[in-house]
């Protein structure tokens, strides 16, 4: 069936134009935003770090206190005497390192919905299944894998 075949190949070409062009455009975004690291959930924990490098607790503290980056103090309070405006929608971060293991903290940052489906706590390491995301944030998690490891390292130091 030469006729049908040629029609099919023409159609395939046009379909490819539709599929490949956005993929090429998305590729430019993907270059800037590396894909998410795979992780394994064990119980209520992600025992293995998301990166090969250990997190930096000082960098983690800066991220937690930053209202544009970590956003943590919008809902949580914590040992940040220099930050007068802290939230009370969520438990205080004081003593978080005593209450949770690093793996438990990691899952609660990466995807708190796994632990508590109705929680107001955003999933910090997620790019799929989101609605109406602002263009500047499409395909980007709230924090990178490195930043999450920094925050986990910092929270682990919080003991009463």
């Amino acid at each position, binding site marked *: 069936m030469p006729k049908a075949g040629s029609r099919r190949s023409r159609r395939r070409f046009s379909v490819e134009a539709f599929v490949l062009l956005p993929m090429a455009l998305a590729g430019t975004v993907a270059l800037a935003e590396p894909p998410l690291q795979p992780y394994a959930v064990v119980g209520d924990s992600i025992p293995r770090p998301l990166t090969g490098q250990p997190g930096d607790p000082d960098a983690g503290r800066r991220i937690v206190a930053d209202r544009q980056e970590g956003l943590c103090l919008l809902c949580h309070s914590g040992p940040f005497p220099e930050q007068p405006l802290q939230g009370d929608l969520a438990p205080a971060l004081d003593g978080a390192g005593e209450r949770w293991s690093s793996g438990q903290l990691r899952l609660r940052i990466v995807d708190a919905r796994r632990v508590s489906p109705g929680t107001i706590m955003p999933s910090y390491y997620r790019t799929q299944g989101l609605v109406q*995301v*602002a263009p500047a944030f499409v395909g980007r998690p709230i924090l990178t894998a490195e930043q999450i490891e920094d925050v986990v390292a910092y929270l682990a130091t919080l003991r009463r």
Partner: protein
Amino acid sequence: MPMPRPSASTTYEKSRTSTRHPLALTIILSTALLALSPAQAANLTDNRRSGYAFMGPPLRAMQDDDMTNPASLWQRDGETLWAEPIGEAGRSCADCHGDAASSMRGVAARYPAFDRTMNRPIDLEQRINHCRTAYQKAGPLAFESHDLLALSTHVARQSRGLPIAIENSKALHPFLAMGRSLFHERQGQLNLSCAQCHDDNAGRSLGGATIPQAHPTGYPLYRLEWQGVGSLQRRLRNCMSGMRAAPYAFGAEAFVDLELYLMWRANGMPMESPAVRP
């Protein structure tokens, strides 16, 4: 073994003994209610609070007095525009509507309202622009432009103190349902819904700012943060940006549905327009 259910007669006997004189009880209760002001009586059953209730005395005073309420400047400009003939028709608002103090009394409290030509609800700003294009033969004013805010503030001022009164009409129901679903839909990079903050956490501190219950009783309003008057849609866009969601365009149907749902939830609450908020 399932627990035996109490028989109907026992329940009846119980209720009969506890309210032996139901008429007397009703009289006592209604006398007690009459001793309260209407506002106090409403508070007995109504847990809804305007953003006003979360503000301190200085901001309340600023709102209450026209001389200190900065939105009065917008309202007075609106009063001037109301009387200005414009467009190819060379007509002013006043030419058709007369004195806004009487003709616009209670109007803003009913908006968004169903519009038969659009076959859907439109908000006050859209209503004003519809008048301009259809009757004054003038161009529509841009959303959030000074003149549109001035006119909507002037119109809304005429409803101050009157109860919000979104019509319970069947035509509005699908749009109310859409507004309700948008209110509960998680969105943006932070994947939050309006309800998670404004229903579940109202009164709590979001980074130092008290979360209100989302009753739009005072729009257009003067916000200290804005250093100016803004519409409800501007406020909704701020929330969406905070959730890292792409805000709908001004005038989008989704916004009007959301406005309608919020105003419907606030039915019966007094209008404060133009309010003052932090």
